[in-house]
């Protein structure tokens, strides 16, 4: 069974600074990996996904993530955060044979300070 770990529950970052959110997964085959963002009172919005191919994927809002099979990681990065990036971020892993039955990490709350 697949599982996802987000080691950081809470991260505080200054506006304009870089951001990196960690995600480690456990899955036997090639995983399908996702990052979602949840703003307060809102649903989850897809930032980016990795299915196959280039291990560095670009997403919306200036985010990117890198799949590293050797480290079982799929870390999310943004070079320069904006105050509007304050939100909860979720990493998720899926499998082709049970599509939609995603395993979500516990989330990382990002606080952006002036």
């Amino acid at each position, binding site marked *: 069974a697949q599982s996802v770990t987000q080691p950081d529950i809470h991260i505080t970052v200054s506006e304009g600074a870089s951001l990196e959110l960690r995600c480690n997964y456990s899955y036997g085959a090639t995983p399908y990996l*996702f990052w979602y963002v949840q703003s307060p009172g809102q649903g*989850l919005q*897809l930032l980016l996904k990795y299915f196959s191919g280039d291990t560095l994927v670009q997403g919306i809002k200036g985010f990117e993530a890198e799949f590293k099979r050797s480290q079982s990681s799929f870390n999310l990065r943004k070079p320069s955060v904006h105050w509007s990036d304050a939100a909860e971020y979720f990493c998720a892993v899926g499998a082709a044979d049970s599509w939609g*039955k*995603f395993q*979500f990490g*516990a*989330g990382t709350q990002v606080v952006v300070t002036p």
Partner: protein
Amino acid sequence: DTAVSQTPKYLVTQMGNDKSIKCEQNLGHDTMYWYKQDSKKFLKIMFSYNNKELIINETVPNRFSPKSPDKAHLNLHINSLELGDSAVYFCASSQSNSPLHFGNGTRLTVT
């Protein structure tokens, strides 16, 4: 033009009551889901329907019954509500092997 819409946004009710949450998607997706997010923000799938057929049914109490009248709608009916049912319930949809699109959630509070 909302892609996945669910109603109501907030639902406050007493223990023992029966309530329903409705979900509709206009993306033409063939699969719809219900996810539960608990107070610690942990997300867990409850059900999944593909073209009105139940394909994922996690270990959810049988007080929870999903109903899909057509592939654009997936409703969730909950009988005999308990305090532990308080959570945010998210509807989502996807086309086969594509990412999930989530609704904005229904915050259920059982008193």
